[in-house]
């Protein structure tokens, strides 16, 4: 009885002491921090860690980085930054500006490596309770590397306070990791069950570790099963990513080729200067950006109609001055327009310099859409894909629903008959060529967001554009879109096996062979339209 009494008394005493130390935690900690003994400071850090408030956080941070001082006279803590020979100080607790103070009046709270280590653990623990969910997530992910069963209790308490789903997910993973470290197969099995299906890269590493020899047989089996499960998910997302890259490349190809599908496919004009019309569109974007440097986001939207008009105008000039004399002589058109393309390239070199011009992407074009830890889609490529579809839809409507489209189709099928019916063929030629050229300019706006804007921009796309049109079937807008997307996807799926250049060579070879087999492309014109 007596013994029990004594024990409970001691216990109460301890409890009281403990409470006391927590209650005057900061004061005691501050006192200890001014001590010259590192052991005392270590205790102080422990006390500060228990308070878990913002002041302690900033105090410890300053201490680790070495600008925490205290005034010798009144032991007041200050953050000091050196300015000349004096220090510029602010109060560490209240943030009050204390002005310049002589170096001799203050003393640094010095730290050694052991203390630094202790502080960094404490700070990362603070981060677990930070107000910002993304910082909490990083703090939790840091725990993954050295998870141990000892952390389980702490994880439980964090989990109760947590509400953000991503952080909860990460906590679950760390919990499972900690359980994996325990020697108990039962805990390990349940941990594997939790981890199954998670795509975090470190999960795969842990599971692979568990499936290696030296572990319990059933644990190994379960781990192996989830490894293969995750692997198959990874490969599915890998393919999805390649598919997206392919669609993106394809949309770029289709965008570059759609203008050509009008001038070459519908009018039968071989326009080798098509690439340079794209280039003019890209340079228009650049000029518009120079004109409105404070509104980059808006300048891109302004550039779309501007590029259309500029390229259309250049196209109309080309049509009036050269091409109209060469209708019905495709090979000669090819040579003359090639001359024009050289001319335009050199003109751009003389005006803008031969170097690439920088075109800034607006904010809403940069960054990426994170779908999960394996799959992210960059916004600029996503927008260009939808932009390509929009342009295509617009063009399709013009060709099928407007009178211009009707006239264009009439003239491409039978020029004399169309003229006999009262279609102004020359006017339609001008409009069609302007339309195709303008679309090329709009493609240039899109391209300026993903490649360098320079005098050689057009040359890089001209062969590809012709390939897309020929492969899709000349005179068929749908064919152009589908062939562009197909070629993009095929190229991107070949790329991991062969490398980018060889993939391109193979795609070209494939088209050459395909054209031998079906000279009219994937979607040949039928009936009277086909000659």
């Amino acid at each position, binding site marked *: 009885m007596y013994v029990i009494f004594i024990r409970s008394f001691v216990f109460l005493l301890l409890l009281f002491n403990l409470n006391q130390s927590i209650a005057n935690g900061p004061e005691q900690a501050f006192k200890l921090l001014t001590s010259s003994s590192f052991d005392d400071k270590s205790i102080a850090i422990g006390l500060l860690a228990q308070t878990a408030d913002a002041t302690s956080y900033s105090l410890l941070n300053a201490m680790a980085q070495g600008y925490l001082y205290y005034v010798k006279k009144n032991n007041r803590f200050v953050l000091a930054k050196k300015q000349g020979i004096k220090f510029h100080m602010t109060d560490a607790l209240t943030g009050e500006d204390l002005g310049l103070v002589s170096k001799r009046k203050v003393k640094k709270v010095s730290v050694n490596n052991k203390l630094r280590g202790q502080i960094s653990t404490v700070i990362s623990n603070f981060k677990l309770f930070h107000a910002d969910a993304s910082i909490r997530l990083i703090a939790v992910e840091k725990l993954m590397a050295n998870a141990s069963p000892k952390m389980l209790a702490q994880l439980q308490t964090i989990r109760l306070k947590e509400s953000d789903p991503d952080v909860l997910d990460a906590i679950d993973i760390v919990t499972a990791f900690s359980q994996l470290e325990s020697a108990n197969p039962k805990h390990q099995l349940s941990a594997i069950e939790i981890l199954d299906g998670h795509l975090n890269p470190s999960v795969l590493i842990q599971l692979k570790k568990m499936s290696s020899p030296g572990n319990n047989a059933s644990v190994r089996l379960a781990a192996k099963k989830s490894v293969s499960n995750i692997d198959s998910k990874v490969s599915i997302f890998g393919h999805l990513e390649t598919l997206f890259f392919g669609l993106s490349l394809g949309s770029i190809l289709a965008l570059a080729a759609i203008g050509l599908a009008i001038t070459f496919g519908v009018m039968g004009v071989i326009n080798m200067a098509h690439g340079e019309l794209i280039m003019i569109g890209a340079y228009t974007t650049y000029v518009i950006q120079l004109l409105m440097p404070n509104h980059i986001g808006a300048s891109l939207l302004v550039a779309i109609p501007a590029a259309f008009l500029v390229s259309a105008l250049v196209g109309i000039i080309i049509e009036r001055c050269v091409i109209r004399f060469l209708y019905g002589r495709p090979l000669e058109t090819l040579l003359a327009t090639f001359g024009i393309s050289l001319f335009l390239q*050199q003109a751009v070199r003389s005006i803008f310099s031969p170097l690439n011009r920088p075109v800034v992407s607006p904010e809403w074009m940069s960054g990426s859409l994170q779908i999960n830890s394996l799959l992210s889609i960059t916004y600029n490529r996503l927008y260009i894909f939808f932009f390509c579809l929009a342009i295509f839809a617009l063009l399709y409507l013009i060709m099928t629903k407007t009178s211009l489209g009707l006239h264009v189709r009439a003239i491409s099928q039978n020029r004399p008959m169309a003229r006999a019916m009262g279609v102004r063929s020359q006017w339609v030629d001008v409009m069609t060529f302007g339309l195709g050229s303008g679309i090329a300019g709009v493609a240039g706006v899109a391209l300026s967001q993903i490649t360098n804007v320079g005098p050689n921009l057009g*040359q890089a796309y001209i062969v590809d554009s012709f390939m897309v049109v020929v492969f899709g079937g000349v005179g068929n807008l749908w064919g152009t879109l589908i062939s562009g997307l197909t070629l993009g996807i095929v190229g991107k799926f070949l790329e991991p096996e062969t*490398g980018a*250049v060889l993939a391109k060579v193979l795609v*070209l070879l494939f088209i050459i062979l395909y*054209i031998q087999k079906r000279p009219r492309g994937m979607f040949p014109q039928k009936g009277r339209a086909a000659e």
Partner: protein
Amino acid sequence: MIRKILNNDLHGKIFLSLLFILTLYVALANLLIPPDHLLHVSTYTVTLLGKYLTYALLAIAVDLVWGYLGILSLGHGAFFALGGYVMGMYLMRQVGDRGVYGNPLLADFMVFLNWDSLPWFWLGFDQFWFAAIMIILVPGTLAFVFGWFAFRSRVTGVYLSIMTQAMTYALMLAFFRNEMGFGGNNGLTDFKDLLGFSLQSNSVRVGLFVSSALALALGYLCCRYIVNSKLGRVSIAVRDSETRVRFLGYQVDHFKLWIFTFSAVLAGIAGALYVPQVGIINPSEFSPINSIEIVVWVALGGRATLLGAILGALIVNYAKTYFTGAFPEIWLFALGGLFIAVTLLAPRGILGFFQKQDQQNPLKEVAEK
């Protein structure tokens, strides 16, 4: 034989005589007349002229398929470059252990890429006779296979032009790769010897110039022979109306295939003579613009005349040397303007102005095919 070929070809006789006199003069003036004399021809000029002559041979090859067969090939630069690469490989093997790395077997770029043995397709290129056969075989085979597929499935006109362009573009991309084993981006260069003689010496330069002139003369005679023969008449008929010739019972594909292949071989030989004179071959020779430039030489000089092609090649290349030296800014404007002017104003080229509207050159219809 030669007399028979040149029968009725006054311009050809004049051209061959001029070529002979020029070659003789340049060769002798370089070797015998002392350098400070007014009539001396510098080695630089000899090499430059030699280069022009190989271009002229290339232009004849294009004229043969475009002017007489109606195939606008935008890929003849590829055959030219392939011939050049074959010659380059031979010259590369001749370097031996005098390269930067001093490896007796491997070229510098192979040592650089850490290869430990010669790739199989480099075997045999240390022998000149093997390289000489390959100069004919490599471009010829490519042209034969390409033509066989293309002509059999009746790919014609613009489509064929774009296919040939895609071919040379694909080859350019492929040769840019280091893994291809042809020196990648830098190509083959730093040549030392040809058949044991130093490439730097005057006499070898003159020898190359004379060989180029000889090749051009022989190429001209062969083409003239083909054009005058029954084969040539059929090919002109194919150019003017392919379907009609087919319905008359001719195997149009075969005629096209043989002439196309022969033309590719000529281009390959031109390339092989070109490389030792300029001292380098790299993938940019495959670039589509080079092939299109050849077509402009032919268009400027006059299609379906052979001599016009030679004239065009010489004029454009002389202008190129002059402009790129004197006004580099203007050259592309001038070349671009030339393309437009020739097609719009002089579709029959320079020689077209001088020739009568005879029955042999019904170019009006060529343009439409």
